[in-house]
């Protein structure tokens, strides 16, 4: 069944399909349609929508609800995610499954409300304190906002780990046809013996992130790191586009990948063998999808709507084997395919200078 949906609404519908029955949030542009949609939809199906007094309260309600065994989501935008970050660290440490949506806007500071990808570092490198990781998914179409949201709930429950979906106002506001997957249309039935639901069946449960004994805290860190290693080995996702014979490899995610794809096609029309890797998981970063193409490529171009954040992970994946270029726009400015094409041509010219 196909439906024409707005990106933000697609996330809401997918969450419901995946079994989400609890949403706690605080109003912030440009994720508003998601909250507003769920304010109507969740009560209709016996769920709970609660507008919290702050971003901080909202994420702490998520902590409590997830700890009580609820399938739960919150959404916000960049500065709101900064406010939530302390408790996101708690949620990761307590290993509570939940989904956090960040419809990013231009930063830093209060910034603007136009599309941006300036929270890549925040999403993938921490944001909050301590050694923790979120699983980070980056849709680049409304269809993916739907399918990756259902995937996010599965991953959250499988790994007992918070999952972040990052998009931007452009994806959140645009309408595209979406294939609705009916196979998820039952609330999550996953057994949660660790949830605090009352100790009627024997052993009591404690959800806690305090370890005053350093040996116990190190053990907890090692346990988390083992889980993260498993996620890195199992869950890397990326889309490859015209990469088989690519001499010039572009790496871009989300909205930017859509534009980079056009630039790759334009480059091909000019006889430049360009290709695109689109990371779908930003953490774990899809190194295994990039590595096979590095030796064959003359140069790599990372395109982002920020000042060069994913660039660091691309450089780590490339590991010095070829030149890595960057093109970025920030502050809510969106790169055009022409700008990217110009950068591809410049990269081609420079790589010939180096090699000849």
């Amino acid at each position: 069944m196909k439906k024409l949906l707005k990106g933000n609404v697609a996330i809401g519908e997918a969450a419901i399909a995946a079994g989400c029955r609890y949403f706690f949030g605080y109003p912030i542009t440009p994720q508003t349609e998601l909250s507003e949609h769920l304010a109507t939809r969740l009560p209709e199906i016996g769920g709970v929508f609660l507008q919290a007094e702050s971003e901080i309260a909202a994420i702490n309600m998520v902590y409590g609800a997830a700890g009580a065994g609820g399938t739960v989501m919150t959404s916000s935008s960049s500065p709101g995610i900064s406010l939530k970050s302390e408790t996101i660290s708690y949620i990761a440490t307590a290993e509570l499954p939940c989904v956090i949506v960040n419809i990013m806007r231009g930063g830093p500071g209060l910034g603007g409300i136009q599309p941006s990808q300036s929270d890549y570092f925040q999403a993938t490198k921490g944001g909050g304190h301590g050694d923790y990781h979120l699983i980070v998914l980056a849709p680049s179409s409304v269809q993916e906002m739907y399918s990756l949201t259902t995937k996010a709930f599965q991953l959250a429950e499988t790994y007992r780990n918070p999952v972040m979906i990052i998009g931007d106002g452009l994806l959140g506001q645009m309408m595209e046809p979406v294939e609705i997957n009916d196979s998820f249309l039952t609330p999550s039935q996953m057994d949660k013996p660790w949830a605090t639901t009352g100790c009627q069946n024997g052993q009591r449960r404690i959800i806690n992130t305090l370890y005053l004994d350093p040996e116990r805290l190190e053990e907890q860190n090692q346990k988390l790191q083992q889980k993260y290693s498993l996620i890195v080995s199992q869950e890397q996702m990326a889309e490859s586009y015209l990469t088989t014979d690519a001499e010039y490899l572009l790496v871009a995610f989300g909205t930017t990948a859509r534009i980079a794809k056009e630039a790759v096609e334009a480059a091909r029309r000019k006889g430049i063998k360009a290709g695109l890797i689109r990371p779908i998981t930003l953490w774990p970063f899809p190194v295994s999808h990039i590595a096979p193409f590095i030796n064959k490529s003359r140069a790599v171009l990372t395109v982002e709507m920020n000042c060069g954040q994913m660039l660091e992970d691309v450089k780590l994946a490339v590991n010095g084997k070829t030149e890595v270029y960057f093109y970025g726009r920030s502050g809510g400015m969106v790169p055009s395919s022409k700008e990217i094409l110009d950068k591809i041509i410049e990269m081609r010219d420079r790589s010939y200078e180096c090699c000849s």
Partner: protein
Amino acid sequence: MNAVPKIPSSLTDKQFHYCPGCSHGIIHRLVAEALDFHNVRERTVGVASVGCSVLAYNYFNIDMQQAAHGRAPAVATGIKRVLPNNIVFSYQGDGDLASIGTAEIVHAAARGENITVIFVNNACYGMTGGQMAPTSLIGQVTSTTPKGRSRVETGFPIKVTEMLSTLDGPAYLSRVSVHKPAQIRKAARSIQKAFRYQIENKGFSLVEILATCPTNWKLTPREAVKWLENNMIPHYPLGEFKDVEGCE
């Protein structure tokens, strides 16, 4: 010969880490007795906060969550919305509830969230070593007001329960003390009532309990009881500030 009271089944047999003369032990027992009295131990979820009672999850023999500093009412809200038939309470000190957590307590109360809050007010930050709390009295010497709390520099102590009583949301708000046996019996009845209101779905209930902190007050336990009686009670009068049953 008097019978020795048994440990309530809502308490574990773990020995408290609290200092001599601290009120937390008595208050833990009163909360546990109230849960036993209402026979809700097996459907109760408690929320521990940050402060001296951060380890409360070791002592209450129930399912517990430990919350970030000040956020216990939000965490309790999340739990209660998922488990509306369970009994959910937070256990918070005055630094946690009346300073960093003011937004969460005010809005949980304003929503009439059907939870119970046990609010322990000892007029200082106990765990970090007796710094000024929003509840510290004018003139009170603390480690961050070495010359005594000055109204010019640090303003006035917050009367949380009176402040919350201006809201329409709460069903029950009271302030009690545990510095004397008669007061302890009153506190026990108040805590029992607060939980009963939650069980009866009447809405938000909070019991503020004046508590001693001899270690940080630099007093003996006996002197601390006197100090509470002579200084705290005049500023923080005991009584019920809101009772939906009483108003009916």
